[in-house]
């Protein structure tokens, strides 16, 4: 049924993604592709995989953004996957009931045996979480590794989504958001975890942790701030190791 379940009493499973520690290595995307090529949504097909115009279904996509927030411009790596929303429009628009939200844990799934491949759910999703499988003729999406997290054949430590278990910088966390003592709930509370596109009112379960503020304030060297130089090799007043300058910052960073 594509009407949303009204009596959600169980855990609310989802991910916390730490934009501070993500290094943009794409390991989560690759590990996800590997696991899910043999898992619940298998196969995750590719078209022309070795050709010039390769395309295919991936559940994780890792963007990198340049963020200009005043004096502290920075690069932020940004993994994007299904947010398992509490009010997922991708579920309610589905005409067949193939798209559904599990009442027991809130995971949003597609029943590939009843999906007609109309693609309307992908139009309804603001987050680009759903990718159409052109070979299978059905929509596919992140399953939160439903075939890992309840898998009795795996060690308990491995019963987390593939992206979480593989992340080398510990930027992805899995857990129950309904449990205030869970790791994910604590991280959200401590670090100010937030929703993507809150104006879409989908109430995403997954939360993102913002990059931390630099502990040492970044200051712009006076010569650059004044616009008086800084051209490499021009010798006309580039950064000098003045207090508060760039080299001073490097010095302080490595003296810690």
């Amino acid at each position: 049924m594509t009407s949303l379940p009204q009596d959600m009493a169980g855990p609310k499973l989802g991910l916390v993604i730490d934009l501070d520690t993500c290094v943009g290595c794409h390991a989560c995307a690759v590990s996800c592709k590997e696991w899910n090529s043999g898992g619940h949504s298998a196969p995750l097909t590719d078209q022309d995989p070795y050709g010039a115009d390769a395309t295919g279904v991936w559940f994780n996509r890792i963007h990198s953004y340049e963020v200009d927030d005043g004096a502290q411009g920075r690069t932020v790596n940004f993994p994007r996957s299904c947010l398992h929303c509490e009010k997922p429009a991708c579920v309610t628009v589905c005409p067949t009931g193939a798209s559904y939200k599990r009442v027991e844990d809130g995971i949003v799934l597609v029943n590939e045996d009843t999906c007609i491949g109309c693609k309307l759910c992908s139009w309804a999703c603001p987050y680009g979480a759903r990718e159409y499988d052109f070979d299978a003729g059905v929509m596919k999406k992140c399953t939160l590794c439903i075939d890992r997290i309840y898998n009795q054949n795996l060690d308990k430590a491995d019963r987390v989504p593939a992206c979480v278990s593989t992340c080398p910088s510990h930027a992805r966390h899995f857990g129950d958001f309904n449990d205030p003592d869970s790791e994910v709930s604590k991280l959200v509370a401590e670090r100010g975890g937030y929703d993507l596109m809150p104006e879409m009112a989908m109430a995403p379960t997954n939360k993102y942790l913002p990059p931390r503020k630099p502990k040492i304030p970044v200051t712009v060297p006076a010569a650059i701030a004044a616009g008086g130089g800084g051209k490499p090799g021009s010798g006309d007043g580039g950064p000098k190791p003045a207090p508060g300058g760039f080299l001073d910052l490097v010095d302080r960073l490595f003296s810690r």
Partner: protein
Amino acid sequence: MNPAYSVIFFTTFSGLGYGLLVWLGVAAATGVIGAERGFGFTAFALAFGAVTTGLLASTYHLGHPERAWRALSQWRSSWLSREGVLAIATYVPTGMFAAAWVLAGRNHGVWAAIGVIGAVLAFGTIITTGMIYASLATIRQWRHGLVVPNYLALGLMTGGIWIAALASLFGIYRASLLLIAIVMIVLAWGLKLAYWFSIDRGSSASTPETATGLGGAEGKVRLLESPHTQENYVMAEMGYKIARKHARKLRRWVQVLAFALPLALILATGFMVVPSWSALPMLTAAILATAGVFLERWLFFAEARHVVTLFYGAERV
């Protein structure tokens, strides 16, 4: 949004067919057209032909057309499902109405009442078609109060021009039919202009900053590296873009084909010395209007900007 021809064909022809069924019901109930069998056969053949080919065309958009029947099950939540249910339900009263008109030569009394029920269902079906698009919060140009009125006006316009054209082909000349066609063209033209005016000036609450949650109060977020070198499904389906100057040109063509030329041709029939001469310009007007609505529907998709493109470098939607 990527303009898929199957969906454009579907909405154009189902709008025409259901619009025609609305006017057939109205014409019988008001006694404007009697149960003339040749006209009835042609008009119902066109209406059911357009509706059925439209529905079949929509299944070409599906990965599994053989499962299309499942789409009738989720009418509680899904506008697409409601559209399917109403589209099929409309066949019942309109089929009875058509059979009485064509086979028994009756379209008054209880048959006219059944025709009106069919007209109401056909009207409702066009609304649900528009709501499939108007219910998507992700696309500002679709989640718009004028989308459903536009779908209704264009469906009733093409249906209205076709009923007047077919009537003149069978020697049925009614000023009221011409008036319906003219009023619907003016109404649909006005609504389309109002829609374009509005979407050109509106703005989305979603930005690269709300999408990523980065940038703070006044910071800007810019895509530095895309996740992949090749275009993926999301980019191809949702990221279709049309240059503004091309959109401007196509909007002019829509206005010429769908509104201006049909209106001029219909007005010109008022000056025909011999009434039977009006059939040719009327049919030309109907064909041009249908082609114009096809182009309009293509633009409706091409000009729609999906919020997911904000993740892929779009600065605004």
